[in-house]
């Protein structure tokens, strides 16, 4: 063989090994993180059953009582609230931008979306404290006859929703743009109105994409820390309404890690909080995958 050719074969081989290696590392990373968190929280898990830890709402680290339900429930509250606000806004505006608005409109909106996506989360937090929190306590709560300082689940949900909008919106625009325009033309030419075309055909076609966009938004909202922590009140109790304060898992970890490490069980408990966070995000991902797979088996 000519040396030139050997050189090429070696290069090919080395590149292949490299690529495989990085792929394997990407696959292993979440496994390693999960394993590490499990190992670090094992001390607490040995002394208490997982069910008890998840179900109890008693959080008294000094007397060794760790109930995670206030945190889990707070996290779920703010996340789903954010999603209920952001989801419809994103779907409707993505539809408007792709199917109704003139093309120059997109050129104005795209930079706005990118700027929203690029703002550091602490700025969203400050905006929440300065604008949203007083708005809730001063204007919104009185309408519903609720007493609140403004630092509440609702504040957290609102701030989060604004944060995930650019994220979900970008993916949705991308998805609607990948639906062939011919499908839209074919449907319209049956004599169907624009809206029916969107509702019965295009949204249906985009459904798997919409689910994965929302799934990603969900995971992002669930893991957001600083902005939520600044407006949500951080009171350890199970919230019973949107005007009450809450204490999400992320805030628990960020507020306490490094402070009370002289209590070994506390350290372990925070690691368990991280593991729960991790597990729930994985569950969200699996659930959206599952929905997509089932849908695709049904329709294509």
């Amino acid at each position, binding site marked *: 063989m000519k040396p030139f050719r050997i050189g090429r074969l070696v290069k090919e081989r080395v590149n292949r090994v490299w690529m495989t290696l990085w792929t394997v590392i990407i696959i292993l990373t979440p496994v390693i993180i999960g394993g590490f968190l499990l190992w670090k929280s094992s001390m607490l898990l040995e002394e208490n059953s997982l069910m008890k830890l998840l179900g109890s709402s008693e959080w008294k680290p000094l007397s060794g009582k760790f109930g995670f339900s206030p945190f889990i429930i707070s996290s779920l509250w703010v996340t789903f609230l954010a999603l209920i606000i952001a989801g419809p806004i994103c779907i409707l505006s993505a539809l408007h931008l792709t199917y109704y608005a003139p093309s120059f409109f997109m050129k104005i909106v795209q930079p706005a979306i990118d700027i929203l996506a690029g703002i550091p989360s602490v700025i969203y937090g400050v905006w929440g404290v300065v604008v949203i929190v007083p708005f809730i306590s001063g204007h919104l709560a009185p309408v519903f006859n609720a007493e609140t300082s403004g630092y509440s689940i609702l504040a957290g949900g609102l701030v989060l929703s604004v944060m995930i909008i650019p994220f979900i919106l970008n993916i949705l625009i991308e998805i609607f743009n990948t639906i062939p325009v011919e499908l839209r033309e*074919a449907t319209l*030419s*049956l*004599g169907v109105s624009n809206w029916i075309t969107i509702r019965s*055909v295009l949204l249906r076609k985009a459904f798997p994409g919409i689910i994965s966009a929302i799934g990603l938004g969900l995971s992002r909202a669930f893991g957001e820390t600083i902005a939520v922590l600044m407006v949500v009140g951080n009171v350890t109790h199970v919230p019973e309404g949107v005007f009450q304060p809450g204490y999400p898992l992320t805030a628990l970890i960020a507020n306490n890690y490094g402070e009370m490490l002289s209590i070994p069980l506390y350290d372990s408990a925070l690691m368990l909080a991280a593991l729960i966070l991790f597990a729930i995000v994985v569950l969200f991902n699996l659930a959206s995958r599952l929905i997509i797979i089932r849908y695709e088996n049904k329709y294509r």
Partner: protein
Amino acid sequence: MENETKIRIENLNLSIGKSKILKDINVEIPKHKITVILGPSGCGKTTLLKSMNRLTDIYSDIRVSGKILIDGEDILHTDKDVTEIRKRMGLLSQRPYPLPMNIYKNIAFGLKISGRRKKRFLNKRIEHYLKQANLWNEVKDRLKEPAASLSIGQQQRLCLARGLAVDPDIILADEPTSALDPISSQEIEKKFTELKNGYTIVLVTHILRQAIRLADYVIFMYLGEVIEQGPAEQFFKSPQTEITKAYLKGSIN
């Protein structure tokens, strides 16, 4: 032989942004005949076809002027809802785009739009239209399967049945066989010659042989203009312009 005009286009101009796509189009399309719009790619055939059922409306940068008269009514300047206009025309596109539903619902969709909801009626009509598109025997036992599970040739016939189900009197076909294998193409072509008794068919193609096989009337376009039009026999036997002669000889493509 009577030669009633179904579609008459007068001084149609169309531009996308700053580029003119169609220039001063004047054509007449006879009723219950196959009219073939022939020409090299990029000459505006498809655009002309789509302007006939106002699919050009959905692009904000398209400007249209002139008249498109269908049975004497100008569809570009009318108070009628655009969905009423489109219902009168079935569209068959280059590749089949079945709706993301099962086979049954693909046909039922159009029927339901026209307000038909009774199960028995739907079943009967769906069988009728699938038979009309020569698809019934192949799909009658799998109506609940997704349309995307059909072969591409079957999908194109499904799209034809779907188009017929809204009861149009015009069929617009945009190179409907370009993605199909020879046998499926043949089936579609055969179907067209059967359908022309009840429908006015406008077929866009760049396949000369297909045009010769099917056309009763030919419109030849080149660079956004209609160069020549007339009955098929006359067009193919004694073309009038140099461009047409060159195209028929195969030197433009």
